[in-house]
Structure formats: C-alpha cells, structure tokens
C-alpha cells in the first residue's frame, strides 16, 4: 500500500475509535461489567496504534521526508502537528490515570475523565482533518516515486517493530469488535 493510502486508512480507523471513546464519556459515571476492560483496550489502542505506530510513521518517515522536500511553509505546519502529537500524549496520560480508578470513582473523578477525554477527541479529530487536507496531498505532489517507495518500506519496518509476531491484523480484530459494540450497534 502506498504511504498516502496507508496513513489515510489509519486516520479512518482512529476516527472510528474516537467515536467509541466519546461513548464512554457520555455514559453514566459507573461502568458495567466488562466495560472497564473495554476502556483499557481502547486506551491501549490509542497508546500503541495511534501514538507508537501511526505517529511513529509520521514522525520518523513522513515529516522528515516532506521537510527534506522543502515544501513551502512545511516546517511551521509540521511543528504545529508535532505540538498536537505532544498534547495528545499528555491528554492520553491523564485519561489513563483517570481510567485506572474509574470503576470506583467519585463524580468529580468522572467529570475530570470526561473533560480530558473530550479535549483529546476534539484535538485528534481536528488534527486528522488538517493532515488529510494539507499534508497527505503533498505525498504525491512533492515526493518522488522512489521516496514514496522508501517510505512504504520504512512504514513496513515500523509496523513489524510495533506489532511483532502478534501482527497488526490481529490487533485490529479487537478494535473492530469494540467499534461494533459501542458505536455501530
């Protein structure tokens, strides 16, 4: 798969799982049996698939390649996207911290979880729309076929380093189940 389609498909998966996270913060403050475990799996998705795998591809592959191509204003755009990644990481740490005690939480704890989760969802949705609109088109406009081919190889290596023998497809099976359970019922 070419790098643009690969990142675009991942953006689609992330948008779906943001909607699942949204279901958790519009629910009543107590979680039913199994839902705490589902929330843990959801957090694992954002830490591994989004931050390590997807952001890894962008930070180690895409952004340096676009920066080398000296596209107009690309460095300031990349800088703002990297700031978003840092902010998202910080929000996810807070979400994880609140989720750890959410089964026995007070209303205040749940409100804090809800607030930071909402901020995370809004930030990442806006970030993805910006990347789809302003960054992904540059892959075909500014990078040569050789550069795109090299990036595909780099993406493949990153995928293996992140998911190893378990494999990305196996990881995504659980993700699809969560999506069907909480969003497209």
């Amino acid at each position, binding site marked *: 798969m070419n790098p643009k389609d690969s990142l*675009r*498909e991942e*953006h*689609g*998966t992330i*948008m*779906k799982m*943001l*909607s699942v996270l*949204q279901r958790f913060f519009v629910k009543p403050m107590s979680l039913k049996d199994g839902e705490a475990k589902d929330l843990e799996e959801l957090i694992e998705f954002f830490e591994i698939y989004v931050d390590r795998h997807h952001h890894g591809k962008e930070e180690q592959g895409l952004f340096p390649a676009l920066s080398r191509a000296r596209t107009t204003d690309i460095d300031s755009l990349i800088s703002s996207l990297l700031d978003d990644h840092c902010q998202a990481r910080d929000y996810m740490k807070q979400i994880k911290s609140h989720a750890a005690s959410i089964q026995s939480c007070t209303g205040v704890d749940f409100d804090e979880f809800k607030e930071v989760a909402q901020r995370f969802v809004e930030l990442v*949705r*806006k970030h*993805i*729309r*910006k990347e*789809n*609109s302003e960054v*992904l088109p540059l892959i075909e406009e500014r990078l040569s076929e050789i550069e795109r081919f090299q990036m595909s190889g780099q993406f493949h290596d990153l995928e293996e380093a992140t998911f190893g023998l378990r494999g990305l497809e196996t990881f995504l099976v659980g993700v699809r189940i969560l999506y069907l359970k909480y969003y*497209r019922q």
Partner: protein
Amino acid sequence: MRVKIDYDLCMGDQNCNKVCPEVFDFDQDQLQSKVRVDSVPAHLEDKVRQVARECAPGAVIIEE
C-alpha cells in the same frame, strides 16, 4: 436513495467530493464534507455507493 454524513466520523479527505461532486460539497472552514442534495439522483446512486465503500471511517451513510 438518501445520503448523510456522520460528522463525528468525517475525516475531511474529500474523496467523496472528488468522486461525486454533484452530491458532496466540502466545507473549507470545518474541513468536512457536506451533502448538497435531499435525495440522490438515480444516475448517481452507484457513485454514492462507491463513495460509501471507499470512506475509510464509514462516515457516508446511505438510506435506501
């Protein structure tokens, strides 16, 4: 056929606008797609089905 956008899922990649501009518009401020028509003209129904299949987050919802 009717079609709508799930705005929580729309990721603004504009594929729907490129494939079927007669039915889908793009809001440059919100960076999201919009539906331009109340009901889809019969000759564009297959294109809209294609758009729904290709939408990675599944934001294009068809009501037959």
